[in-house]
């Protein structure tokens, strides 16, 4: 039995379905990652603001996101919005919104850390040349922060990919859920189904995340001079 267990992957549409599940995972993760990176850049710059109110609000946002589990945010938004307003929003939109909301905060903190680590003299020598605040950001500060944020940002991206495992709760059938469906149906004929299916999913996650983390390592060592 054990040795024929791998056949479960080739039964019916199983493999295709698992890959479709992976596609859901990747689609939502990638879109959220991209949005988080863009918004995180903006919010991160706000976090370095000298205005204490702005700083407090953004800090509060970060703490909230860190303490409220993603699962709760998904639930509250997907069911809560409909309950309170009667409006239905596609669950993938909700998923992307929640992931972006979370990712933006984390990303912003990464940006904040890297902006504050830019020596003060860089701001000053830009100013001394007559650059406006906007020019200072565009030509001097952001290009320098980008290098420093990429490694931790990629780390964040892999975390976001891995967190898509929560999505079945709002009805998104991602790769792990498909795997479970396949196991439930096939376990009678293939007692080792869970071994093969989870094994495959383990591998798939690794295949998706590993190149990202390799890339971050590479950039990290490259930019360390």
């Amino acid at each position, binding site marked *: 039995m054990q040795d024929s267990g791998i056949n479960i992957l080739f039964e019916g549409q199983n493999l295709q379905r698992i890959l479709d599940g992976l596609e859901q995972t990747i689609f939502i993760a990638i879109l959220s990652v991209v949005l988080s990176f863009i918004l995180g850049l903006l919010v991160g710059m706000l976090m370095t603001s000298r205005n204490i109110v702005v700083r407090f609000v953004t800090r509060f946002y970060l703490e909230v996101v860190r303490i409220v589990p993603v699962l709760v945010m998904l639930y509250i938004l997907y069911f809560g919005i409909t309950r309170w307003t009667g409006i239905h929003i596609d669950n993938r939109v909700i998923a992307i919104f929640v992931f972006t909301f979370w990712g933006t905060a984390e990303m912003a903190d990464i940006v904040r850390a890297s902006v504050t680590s830019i*020596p003060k*003299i*860089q701001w*000053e*020598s*830009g*100013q*001394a*040349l*007559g*650059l*406006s605040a906007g*020019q200072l950001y565009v*030509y*001097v500060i952001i*290009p*320098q922060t980008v*290098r420093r944020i990429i490694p931790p940002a990629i780390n964040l991206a892999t975390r976001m990919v891995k967190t898509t495992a929560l999505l079945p709760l709002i009805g998104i059938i991602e790769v792990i859920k498909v795997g479970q469906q396949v196991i439930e149906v096939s376990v009678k004929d293939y007692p080792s189904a869970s071994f093969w299916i989870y094994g495959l999913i383990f591998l798939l996650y690794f295949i998706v995340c590993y190149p990202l983390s390799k890339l971050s390592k590479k950039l990290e060592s490259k930019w360390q*001079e």
Partner: protein
Amino acid sequence: MESPILTLKHVNKYYGETQALADIQLDVAKGEVVTIIGQSGCGKSTALRCINGLEEIQSGSILLDGKEIAAAGTNWKEVRQKIGMVFQKYDLFPHMTVLDNVLLAPLKVQKRKKDEAAEEAIALLKRVGLEDKAHSFPRQLSGGQQQRVAIVRALMTHPEIMLFDEVTAALDPEMIREVLNVILDLAKDGMTMLIVTHEMAFAEAVSDKIVFMEKGNIVEISDDPKAFFKQPQSQRANEFINTFRFQ
């Protein structure tokens, strides 16, 4: 004497409780090289930073070409093109090549034509001996080379006055020499300069005027550097000069 390019009148500057500048009065005439010396923390950097608008002053006035620049509503973009400043270090933008560094202000602030500005940049880099480094990044240069680029970058906006804040403090002796030679050269060309340095021999050689500060005050101004370094008038300046002598 013709009217000064830069004038500080009764300038006072506080950081919280500490008074960093106390009733500072200073004139810098066109073509004049003025060097400020004094102990660490006496207010030298603060003086330069106030002139360049990096810090606000609490009272007094600062005139550039006879126009008040320490008041609200100053067009700093314009003023800063007339003032070039070079800092102690980490001054260049590490993500840009040397050429991009020196072209940033001419192209983005002054909106000059790229060809023409680049031509001038190359000429200036040549003058400081770095024409072959135009496409290098700052980290590929030695500290002394970086500071020479920083000087070129400041010169590119055609300032009327240059401010130097301990530009050699982080350098090794030969590099110090490379950089100071560039400044000596500018002095010969008649550039107006306000210099903060701890290199006494250099100060003696380059300056038209020495300003000795202590605790935010100007204690002594001398128009004769040679005489000053031999025997300053004030007791405090004398003590200070002595820390550079052995036995």
